[in-house]
């Protein structure tokens, strides 16, 4: 790799000292006084301050100016004020809005639990920022065909923010799978929260 790809050496070209992320975003304290899990208030419509050098990698690691953000509470705090605007992921406080780069999905689902006591199985996920989501009509599963790595499952966390389901959990999902008739075709998928979430055509299961 070239030297310019290195996060630490990249800082050499960046004469401006790195601000602490707490101060990188004005109004953060006020924004996070709201209870967690709700996201930024829909009524906040602050000026757009462009993009900041913040990136969320596919494995859920957040980077600021090329260095990973190691403090989990800080990542949770940023995650709690994120929303999606068009194709863009933004962090929103009452006074400022900034765009961040998302490599795949903004969250990663790292744990799954299944409740089969009821006739209708419930599927719950915990994300890397400690949100929990129960799969239902408002928090659907969706499956996308990746460029090289087969099917990738996602679960909607809130708003239009999704969590990529960790690879290891995908196999647990497949193990839960069943075939149901939808329209004129048989589909392989997962039934949870009273709904069926199709993964692929039943005829394509071999490829999984």
């Amino acid at each position, binding site marked *: *790799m070239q030297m310019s790809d290195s996060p*630490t050496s990249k800082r050499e070209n960046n004469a401006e*000292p790195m601000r602490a992320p*707490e101060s990188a975003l004005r109004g953060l304290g006020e924004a996070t006084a709201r209870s967690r899990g709700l996201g930024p208030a829909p009524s906040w419509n602050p000026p757009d301050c462009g993009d900041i050098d913040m990136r969320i990698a596919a494995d859920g690691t957040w980077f600021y100016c090329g*260095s*990973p*953000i*190691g403090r*989990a509470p800080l990542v949770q705090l940023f995650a709690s004020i994120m929303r999606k605007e068009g194709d863009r992921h933004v962090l929103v406080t009452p006074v400022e809005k900034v765009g961040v780069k998302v490599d795949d999905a903004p969250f990663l689902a790292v744990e799954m639990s299944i409740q089969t006591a009821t006739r209708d199985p419930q599927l719950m996920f915990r994300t890397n920022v400690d949100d929990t989501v129960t799969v239902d009509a408002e928090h659907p599963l969706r499956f996308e065909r990746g460029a090289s790595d087969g099917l990738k499952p996602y679960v909607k966390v809130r708003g239009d923010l999704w969590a990529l389901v960790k690879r290891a959990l995908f196999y647990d999902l497949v193990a839960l799978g069943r075939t149901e008739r939808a329209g004129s075709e048989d589909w392989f998928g997962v039934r949870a929260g009273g709904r069926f979430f199709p993964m692929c055509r039943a005829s394509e299961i071999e490829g999984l």
Partner: protein
Amino acid sequence: MSADLISDPSPASLRALARGKLRASLSLADLERAAPGAMSDDAPDGRLPEFAALGPLRPAAVLLPIVNRPFGLNVLLTLRASDLRAHSGQVAFPGGKIDAGETPREAALREAYEEVGLEERFIEPLGWLDPYFTGTGFRVAPLVALVEPSFVLTINKLEVDEVFETPFAFLMDAANHRLEEREWRGRRRKYYAMPHEGRYIWGATAGILRNLYEKLTS
């Protein structure tokens, strides 16, 4: 204590832990007298490799730099240049052989400066881990240090391809320590691996990090 290390480690808690758990000093004589520590190459399965067969082990020192970023502690690691003789293309700490007349501390600090341009004034040594014996013939003294983040690095491209940081909390979470196995020089060997964001941290580097984890959480 260990929960803190993982969820939100602070420089203050790390300093306090280091004071109680790490060796305050390590001389060259200490290093030369040391028996292979519990956490040397191949030790995860309880067996030690035949170090005697390797001939005399050469003394070396590494710096385990923990960068005190405003948003958390990160461990600074290097990707060694792909045309180096030993451990080329691998993830490593800054470090190398101890020169004649040098103390392990001097060697660790000199190597950190030579390889990545990290100046001593940013480095606050916290203490030593037990010597780590590598299957490639080194007895390594690891100096753990907190590093102030205002440094500017100059990378010596002859020795290092790249410098990157990995969250300390990730590396100190045992859930991320994978015990792997592979055939090497006619024998199955076990080693730790801690892959993160496309970086494959393994072998002696992962072993030394595992050693740090065990010391700090003991």
